[in-house]
């Protein structure tokens, strides 16, 4: 039986995991720093070179990884309730496709980081509005309709992306491909991203119990006193915004938004009062650890973090899916 006490215990445990992931991310990289030196750098008593490496390079990157992972997991939970489908992920409604078209066009034209970010964000929002408008056009606003519209729009974006890649100059293809696979090398505003994550979670949490009811279907939720339309709209907007910010900072990083909510549900059930903050912590921890690995395994080469999340996510997901009897 879920209660506030268990929620606290679960969140404390996940907080500890996130802290460990953070420690690893600060210590790992092309040069492995021992934990004592990491602590020294953070408290300002360390060797100046190590301090510069950790505080100026690794810390912002770890913060960005945590924020993006948290945003993706949060968006995943919200999209899954919205579409009443545990297979939905933050990108299912074409958000990442729109962002990718914006970002890749900027990269192909050789525009700067700021323009790439701005256009990715605009692309994500444009895709969101397009899917919503098309799905809503005839009044019927069912999860299936929304899902189908999103999938079709995403296919359209994929075609545009292919077109862009075919036409792009060779020298820029590499950065475009990295962006498509998810790469935190572009994350420029870790603290702002973290603030967005905090605000998004704070906005979603008060509605956690209403989400529990909504998860049982819109008619049942309405019968139990939930104002379904405003709530769905708010979830849609929040999830899209969280995804847009995450994609803008990290490109299209797969699996976090799908795997993390799923694992949390298997572990603690589908009570959103635990699921929302739990998924944020777990998603943040997962991406922080994955990015640390991406920077380390092939050092001095950096892998796109999306490669690592998929490498971790695919076997983990299949293993857990086969271990449990329950279909979801």
């Amino acid at each position, binding site marked *: 039986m879920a*209660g506030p006490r268990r929620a606290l215990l679960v969140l404390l445990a996940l907080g500890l995991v996130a802290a460990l992931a953070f420690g690893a991310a600060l210590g790992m990289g092309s040069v492995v720093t021992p934990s004592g030196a990491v602590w020294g750098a953070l408290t300002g008593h360390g060797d100046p070179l190590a301090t510069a490496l950790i505080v100026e390079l690794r810390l912002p990157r770890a913060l960005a990884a945590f924020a993006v992972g948290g945003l993706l997991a949060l968006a995943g939970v919200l999209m899954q309730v919205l579409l009443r489908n*545990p297979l939905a992920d933050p990108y299912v409604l074409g958000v990442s496709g729109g962002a990718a078209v914006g970002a890749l066009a900027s990269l192909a034209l050789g525009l700067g980081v700021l323009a790439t970010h701005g256009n990715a964000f605009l692309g994500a929002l444009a895709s969101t509005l397009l899917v919503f408008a098309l799905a809503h056009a005839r009044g019927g606003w069912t999860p299936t309709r929304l899902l189908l519209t999103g999938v079709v729009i995403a296919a359209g974006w994929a075609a545009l992306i292919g077109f862009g890649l075919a036409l792009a100059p060779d020298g820029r293809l590499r950065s475009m491909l990295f962006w498509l696979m998810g790469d935190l090398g572009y994350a420029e505003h870790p603290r702002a991203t973290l603030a967005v994550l905090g605000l998004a979670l704070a906005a979603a949490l008060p509605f956690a119990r209403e989400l529990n009811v909504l998860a049982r279907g819109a008619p049942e939720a309405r*019968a139990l*006193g939930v104002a379904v339309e405003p709530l769905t709209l708010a979830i849609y907007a929040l999830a899209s915004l969280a995804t847009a910010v995450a994609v803008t900072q990290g490109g299209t990083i797969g699996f976090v938004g799908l795997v993390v909510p799923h694992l949390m549900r298997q572990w603690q059930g589908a009570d959103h009062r635990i699921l929302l903050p739990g998924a944020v912590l777990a998603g943040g921890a997962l991406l922080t650890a994955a990015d640390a690995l991406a920077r380390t395994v092939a050092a001095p080469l950096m892998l796109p973090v999306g490669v690592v999340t998929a490498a971790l996510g695919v076997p983990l997901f299949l293993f857990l899916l086969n271990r449990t009897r329950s279909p*979801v």
Partner: protein
Amino acid sequence: MSALLASRALTVVVGGKRVCAALDGEVRAGEFVAVLGPNGAGKTTLLHTLAGLRAPASGAVLLAGDDLDTLPRKRVAQRLGLMMQHHDDAFPATVLETALIGRHPHIGFWMWESADDVARARQALAAFDLAGFEDREVDTLSGGERRRLAAATVMVQDPQVFLLDEPTDGLDPRHAAQSLAAFRALADAGRAVVVALHDVNEASRVADRVLLLFGDGQTLLGPAAEVLEAGLLERLYGIPLAAIEHGGRRHFLAR
């Protein structure tokens, strides 16, 4: 005593077909009303309209005198509970968690369920023979057990007016009788109960009054003893019926 639920000149249309036309009806505290009609006559549509889930073509539904349209959904859910025919269990949940969902309209924005809420849920589960099922996953239940869980959930909601859509669907005879008896007891304790049924004999066993939906917009609402008679029911279902008196009750058999 005034009506807990009333319809005023209520016309309900679904898919271009009339379910009822200018229906005036009332359900008072202590009453148990059965809604009968052939498949597709609009029993579910009518219940959903009475619950405010869909708008009527014209007319109004009054909940304890207030127009349903003007009340916030949460206030409605505190006073009116709907047990639906289908359940969408897209995500994992235990039986106890599912029953506790019924407390939602009574719990404040930021609050968790209290010990009292949990006690109510356990009591309701026991009333439908689901004691000991608390920690079972909902997707491991049989169809009949899932129906009983839905019945327990609406009981946990504790409204003044119960709208139940085929609560005995898929239940074995013992549990069907138990479910109807539980809701009959709630009516006797001063609640109002409206139940869509497909079994005439269940209606004859528990209902005070019966509403017939003929499927062409015609309706008939009256005391069970008057409405449940072979001629009317033959017209309702379009098959020949035999009425048998047994144990002070009328039973109907297809001839």
